[in-house]
């Protein structure tokens, strides 16, 4: 439940471009229920601070509305930092937990809200929470590279930002299926450290 609520809250913050990037990082860690994800989130917050001079997501959106998308505008180091941050978010995206580990009695393929024998449909909740986590991570990754898809800057390149969000979600799903969890976590932390270092030093 906490992970689901954190994922929804993170998505809401990113969509509306309100809130703080460091808080978004904490929510990312809670959504993934993973220390590595939380660390990556905070490092990305530091990267945002290093590039835009503020940890506010509104500043992130406003800055990209003025100078262009972070993924292809500005100094090379900053551009690389943005892409590394987005990659880190996608790599530590919340994953679906195996049903056998936590809910041994849960039948496979139970529908949402109709899970007999399990309180409040834990298996379905895992899938729902996973989907929410993927959506939130995709939105956050897209916001780091191309700006928020909806919200305050709806008048500009909205299609591009929507496409970036969809692509980021698809990549998150693909990484979750192809890349082993441990490898993805290590790669995500490395990418986040690189993003923060580039943003602060460049």
């Amino acid at each position, binding site marked *: 439940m906490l992970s689901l609520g954190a994922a929804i809250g993170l998505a809401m913050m990113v969509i509306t471009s309100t809130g703080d990037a460091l*808080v978004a990082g904490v929510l990312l860690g809670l959504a993934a229920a993973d220390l590595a994800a939380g660390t990556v989130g905070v490092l990305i917050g530091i990267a945002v601070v290093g590039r835009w001079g503020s*940890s506010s997501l509104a500043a992130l959106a406003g800055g990209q509305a003025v100078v262009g998308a972070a993924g292809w505008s500005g100094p090379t180091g900053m551009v690389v930092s943005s892409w590394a941050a987005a990659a880190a978010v996608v790599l530590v995206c919340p994953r679906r937990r195996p049903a056998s580990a936590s809910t041994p009695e849960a039948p496979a393929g139970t529908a*949402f809200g109709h899970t007999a024998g399990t*309180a409040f449909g834990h298996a379905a909740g895992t899938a*729902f929470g996973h989907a929410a986590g993927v959506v939130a991570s995709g939105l956050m990754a897209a916001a780091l590279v191309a700006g928020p898809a909806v919200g305050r800057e709806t008048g500009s390149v909205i299609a591009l930002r929507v496409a970036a969000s969809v692509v980021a979600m698809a990549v998150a799903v693909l990484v979750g299926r192809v890349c082993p969890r441990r490898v993805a976590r290590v790669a995500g932390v490395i990418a986040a450290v690189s993003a923060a270092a580039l943003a602060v030093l460049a």
Partner: protein
Amino acid sequence: MTGAQTSALVVALVAPIVVLVAAGGRPTGSGSRPPPSRWVQAGLLVAAGAWLVLVVSGATGHTGAFHVTPLAAAAGCGAALVAVAVVEGTTRRRSLSATCAALSAVGVSLTAGSDGAAAAGVVGGLALAAVLTADLGPGPAGTSRRGRMLPALLAGGGVAAGAIGFAVVHSRTGHWTLTTDAPVALGAIVAFLVAATLLGACGTLGLRPALRSGTEPALRSGTEPALRAAPERGALLLAGGLAVGLTAAPLRVGADELGAAVVILASAAVVAAGVRRGALSLALLALAVAAGPAALAPGSRLLAAAAVIVVAVDLPWAWLAATPGAVSLASGVIDDGGRLAFATAVGVAAVAVLLAQAASEEGALGRRLSLGAVPAASVGAWLVVAPGSWTWTGASLAAYDEGTARAVAAGLLVVVAYVLVGALGRRPDAPPPRRARSRSSRPGRSLERPAQLVTSGSSASTPRPRRATRSQRARPIGRGRARPAKAPKRSRSRTRPPPSEA
């Protein structure tokens, strides 16, 4: 101060004593009567509310021999909330009396003096509180007298350091008062920081250290002796000590005068986080940040508030209360841009990682929130969601407030809708979830599960045990599934219930 604020101050100082006298005549809780600790908690909540009125109204000024600052009022409110958690489940009248009297003493130490913190009030109040919170009597089995002496020694050292600080102030200025508009010598500030550190250590020493690696079996079998949710009485000293440190630290003359103190305190905070002492770590961080650049001052107050809340709640997720302080600190580091601020930020980041790791490990045990900690937890939730409304801290967190409010609202809406849909859409033939959850599956009692499974499955003479429900099965803390442990042969005799119980 207005008349309402003066009344609130009187109520805040007197309410603990009044409720102590009122509860003293009540018989011990039996039958339908609530226990005396509940009456005391109600009175302490009145005191906390009075302090809160002073904080929210921004009370500043003096009345008679007492003065109020927002920081002092906030510290008093925090001490009262801690006291509510301390008396949870306490049945001994002596403990209740000592807690109430100690809270009043802490309140006097925070507000004594007409034009600032007076030496007699601060030192006398804290000394009285230290004596009242010391527990040198016969303790429970397994606790050494030497171990119970340590908090008293720390409290005594803190009070002595505070007295030294006032002596240094008197030697330079000729006054026995610590005013916020007059610079103080470096030696006095160091003495006050030492006093705050020692009192903070005393205040957090009674807390159960978070789960260490390798102690899961002991905790699950219930042999770990220190599994308690309520803090010790010494926790009352934390708020008073932090108030002394946060009041004195900004009075330095130069910007980087206390650079060494910042590094030492931040390093100590990292070490404390490494040994899973979350509250102590946050308290030390608050003092380190307070001794740092002035731009970080709001962060230090928010971190101090988080430390007090962590002491009262004593659960891993309470460490989230440090998030606003960390965010405020980040903006302060951006504004300052100095090396000292950067070093402080590094210390905060290290503490955050260590505490997050500890929380992720201990969270699997799922301890419950005690009733006495609910008020402090509510204030902690307020701190996490809307720290910008804590104007006494001086933090400017408008973006944080807006985003977090939306995130919490959206998350709660979806979670509530999800729960409702899940409850309404359950099949009629499905057993209700509460029936599936046995009484022993409560998190607070879940530590006994493995032993129960082992003993019931190993007894050959007892009837075949029913299949354990999902909630009764042993769950792994880390990855993978738990394997059923082999039962020791000695335990067979214990599994048979006595005839009376059978």
